[in-house]
């Protein structure tokens, strides 16, 4: 194996290494001159700056070796907050972020129902990930959950900007406020989780997976909050967001993609539920909100087949796929393969869990590679 001396502390090489790291499925024949045990020692004993650099090196080498174990292990060596920490800001209908501070963690209810919803539902989302997957916030290290409400004027949207969640009030004509639905908040927060895990590129199939994971865990947050089993859940995303004027029950249906709305003003729900109906488009970053219907339905079918609480088995399989298997450019086939493999590893090959996963993916037109 070729040995290449690299100054891993130089900014130029860090950038180069980051780009190289994106090719995770390729065999890396470059060895780093600083051994792992030295970096671990620096993490234990070094200055704050030295610790951070050494930690980055360890993450990098683990990624090159196709492992992600170090993230969880090393996080325990830094000061990590193990408590929920929410901050809600008010943009006052402007588009400045984060806006005016309204409510900090632990403060009593104030600022109106939108602030309360953002506060309560981000707490519910944190609790879901902590209780079910032992995940400490978005980054596993207790990252603060910042939300801005009343963003923009009549703003018919909610988004994740890479560091925080942002919610509009809706125009009152088509949309109500976007904090109204717990699954919307779960959806946005999950974008943060994805960013720190598989970092699925936000376009085409990888982007549709990114969207699907947010719908999946957004829905599971709602089901957990309501203590619903899979057969009692509505499997709707954004129900309650439309005003009464709109002919529609929600923005998306994981159970039956394409059925959520059909309205003379906003049109018909365009989501497909099967690969034969995959939408090729350049809009919406390659249809990330459209084609997410296919993996959404695969999750729904898996959860319904297995029964019980959907987060228990189906949710666990999908979570492990997101955090341990997928990469930036993973596609639907990658997720099918990963969930098939994970189900076999956790529950046993050819057991009901793996069979349910296979049946679900076949149901949307994809055959996991282990089955071919």
């Amino acid at each position, binding site marked *: 194996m070729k040995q290449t001396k690299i100054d891993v502390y130089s900014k130029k090489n860090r950038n180069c290494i980051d780009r190289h790291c994106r090719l995770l499925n390729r065999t890396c024949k470059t060895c780093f001159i600083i051994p792992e045990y030295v970096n671990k020692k620096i993490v234990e004993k070094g200055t704050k700056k030295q610790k951070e650099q050494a930690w980055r090196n360890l993450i990098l080498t683990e990624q090159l070796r196709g492992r992600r174990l170090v993230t969880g292990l090393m996080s325990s060596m830094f000061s990590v907050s193990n408590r929920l920490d929410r901050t809600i800001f008010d943009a006052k209908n*402007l*588009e*400045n972020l984060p806006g005016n501070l309204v409510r900090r963690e632990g403060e009593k209810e104030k600022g109106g129902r939108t602030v309360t919803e953002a506060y309560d539902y981000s707490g519910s989302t944190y609790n879901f990930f902590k209780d079910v997957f032992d995940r400490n916030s978005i980054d596993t290290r207790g990252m603060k959950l910042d939300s801005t409400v009343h963003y*923009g*004027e*009549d*703003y*018919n*949207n*909610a*988004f*994740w*900007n*890479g560091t925080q969640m942002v919610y509009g009030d809706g*125009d009152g*004509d*088509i*949309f109500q406020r*976007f904090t109204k639905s717990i699954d*919307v908040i779960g*959806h*946005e927060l999950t*974008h943060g989780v994805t*960013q720190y895990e598989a*970092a699925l*590129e*936000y*376009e085409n199939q990888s982007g549709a997976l*990114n*969207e699907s994971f*947010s719908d999946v865990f957004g829905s599971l947050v709602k089901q957990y909050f309501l203590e619903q089993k899979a057969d009692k859940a509505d499997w709707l995303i*954004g129900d309650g967001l439309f005003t009464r004027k709109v002919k529609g029950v929600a*923005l998306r249906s994981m159970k039956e993609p394409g059925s959520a709305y059909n309205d003379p*003003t*906003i*049109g018909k729900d*365009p989501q497909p539920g099967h690969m034969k109906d995959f939408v090729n488009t*350049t*809009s*919406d*970053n390659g249809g*990330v*909100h*459209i084609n997410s219907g296919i993996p959404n339905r695969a999750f729904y079918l898996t959860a319904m087949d297995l029964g019980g609480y959907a987060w228990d088995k189906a949710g666990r399989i999908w979570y492990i796929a997101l955090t341990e298997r997928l990469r*930036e450019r993973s596609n639907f086939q990658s997720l099918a393969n990963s969930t098939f493999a994970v189900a076999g590893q956790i529950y046993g090959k050819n057991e009901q869990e793996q069979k349910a996963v296979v049946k679900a993916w076949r149901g949307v037109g994809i055959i996991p590679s282990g089955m071919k």
Partner: protein
Amino acid sequence: MKIEIERSGGFAGFTRGIIVESKDLPRSLAKLLEQSLANKKSSVPLTSNKNKSADCYHFKVSNCEGKKKIDIEFNELDLDKELRSLMNNLFKKVT
């Protein structure tokens, strides 16, 4: 100058398009869009990280005149707050 602007994405994933005369746009916005199309590349510095943000609006601006179609694309977070507000205002009447 006639310009087509498509806004897609957002949490709802709606795609909507409008055609406007640049002279009818707010001056700063008209200047930005005309400049981008004239240069055949976005004058909007693509500062936001497309792969970290999600559910933001995505804009595609195209010329309606001229022999060759030119498309300029950017994310709403690439715009400064004034231009972002102006762009989103254009779509207020288009649901």
